[in-house]
């Protein structure tokens, strides 16, 4: 299975601001004095090498332990996806980017339809298998730059940066159809099929919103998808701030003129008076 998120060094640098005293080079780290047992146990449980390797410096080792713990703290143990905390930090970072660049970022909330029925019919182990299968499927459906997290029980979230409004629905539909076509083995000779409902919202372009508000907008759409029959995608309309294709066409007219000018200049014709009847408004 593909790891849903890379090494978490960047997050760690954001989250931890060690007091300056800890950073002074004079303090030689004494690993014995540090009570690392719980940390080691956690890492081991996550199948990570938890012992100091031969030749590894104490600082290097400690850094590796910290990296490992950071990764675990952002991960959902059942599916290996990011968890709620990971979602939050990803959303907050996305909000910063959007506020500065106006880039489109889409948040999808995905909820498995009638999940309780699977648990009731096939048992909780089967339920877990379904969750894992859906997690893998979601991670496979999106680009490496996208983030998939397990948001709650049978609810997942997908964050898609650089996702133009035109593509958002197509991606969400593709995910919905791929999940619906899955046949998930939960026991010998028993496969189940599930569907998902999806609600989505774009980060409001240019506006520094909050993660909570953004999730809430996506959640309202998820509710809409659920109440209008499940197995469907509902997306929040992007902000009306957008500039229509017609407006853009007109806005960029000068570029065509400029290009024409350049071509004509290159071909040796006299440069045209491109300003034509434009009047200087400064002294108006």
């Amino acid at each position, binding site marked *: 299975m593909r790891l849903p998120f890379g090494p978490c060094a960047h997050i760690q640098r954001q989250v931890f601001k060690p007091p300056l005293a800890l950073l002074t080079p004079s303090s030689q780290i004494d690993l014995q004095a540090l009570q690392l047992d719980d940390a080691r146990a956690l890492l081991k449980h996550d199948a990570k090498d938890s012992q100091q390797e031969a030749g590894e410096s104490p600082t290097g080792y400690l850094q590796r332990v910290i990296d490992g713990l950071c990764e675990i703290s952002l991960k959902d143990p059942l599916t290996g996806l990011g968890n709620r905390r990971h979602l939050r930090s990803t959303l907050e970072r996305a909000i910063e980017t959007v*506020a*500065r*660049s*106006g880039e489109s970022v889409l948040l999808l909330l995905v909820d498995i339809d009638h999940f309780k029925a699977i648990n009731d019919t096939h048992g909780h182990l089967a339920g877990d298998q379904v969750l894992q299968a859906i997690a893998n499927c979601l991670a496979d459906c999106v680009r490496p730059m996208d983030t998939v997290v397990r948001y709650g029980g049978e609810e997942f979230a997908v964050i898609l940066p650089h996702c133009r409004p035109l593509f958002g629905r197509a991606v969400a539909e593709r995910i919905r159809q791929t999940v619906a076509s899955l046949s998930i083995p939960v026991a010998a000779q028993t496969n189940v099929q599930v569907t998902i409902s999806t609600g989505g919202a774009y980060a409001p*372009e*240019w*506006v*520094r919103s*909050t993660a909570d508000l953004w999730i809430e907008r996506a959640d309202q759409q998820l509710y809409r998808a659920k109440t209008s029959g499940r197995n469907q995608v509902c997306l929040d309309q992007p902000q009306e*701030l*957008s*500039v*229509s294709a*017609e*407006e*853009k066409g*007109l*806005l*960029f*007219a*000068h*570029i065509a*003129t*400029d290009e024409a000018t350049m071509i004509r200049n290159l071909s040796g014709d006299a440069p045209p008076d*491109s*300003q034509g009847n*434009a009047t*200087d*408004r*400064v*002294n*108006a």
Partner: protein
Amino acid sequence: MNDVLTPTAEHPSTAKLPLRPHGKVLAVTSGKGGVGKTFVSANLAAALAKRGHKVLVLDADLGLANLDVVLNLYPKITLHDVFTGKAKLEDAILQAPGGFSVLLAGSGMVEYSRLTPEVRDEFLRIISSLVPHYDVVLLDTGAGISDVVLFAVSLASEVLMVATPEPTSLTDAYATIKVLVGQQQRQTVRVIVNQAARPGSGLAITNQLQQVLDRFVVTDHPIRLVHMGDIPVDPEVRQAIMRRQLLMQATPGCPAGAAISQLARKLEESVIPKPA
């Protein structure tokens, strides 16, 4: 000519300043990031100072403007300390190399990048106490149309919209102007075309923007764009930044420098009273 800080709309992120200051507040904004707002703010301030105006530049991008880098100033006391009550406003004002004053935000200001009522009030208090002491206060705003940017712009009597001829910059400038019309009932936006492809192209671009606005933005108070000038692409701009100098000090006579001097003259003709 309207000498009051523009009283703006009923939008929650805008406000009325209580006093009738003698100074002019000019917001430098763009929509798209990286088009040269900070470059224009700092060098225009120097050009105006040279013409005898008392100018202050405020980092309304809350620490992300890199004004400190452009001006090579790394003060101990910043706007952040004023916000947190650790320092007095006058102690945070610095003398910049170009002969103007500057109020830098400090790295901690990012915490204030959400427009809470406290941030609004503090901003309002700071700007209203600055204005009577200067001829011109330039607000170097952040990229985007965030609520902080819109609020900063709402405090200004004039908007200087910096755009480049690129489609993305034009689209964002256009989107910003639409918001300013709808939300703040702006009637005039002054356009500066930076990194202009060739002399005169900025006027054509401004007229183009005006046409699209006239056609698509329907209001009872039509918006008027005023083309203030073009600044050409100039290698000296980067050179000055690399040397940590202000362009207007390093090479004021270079094409970009001359364009900025020209811009200062035009502002004096239309917006800022000539110095006494």
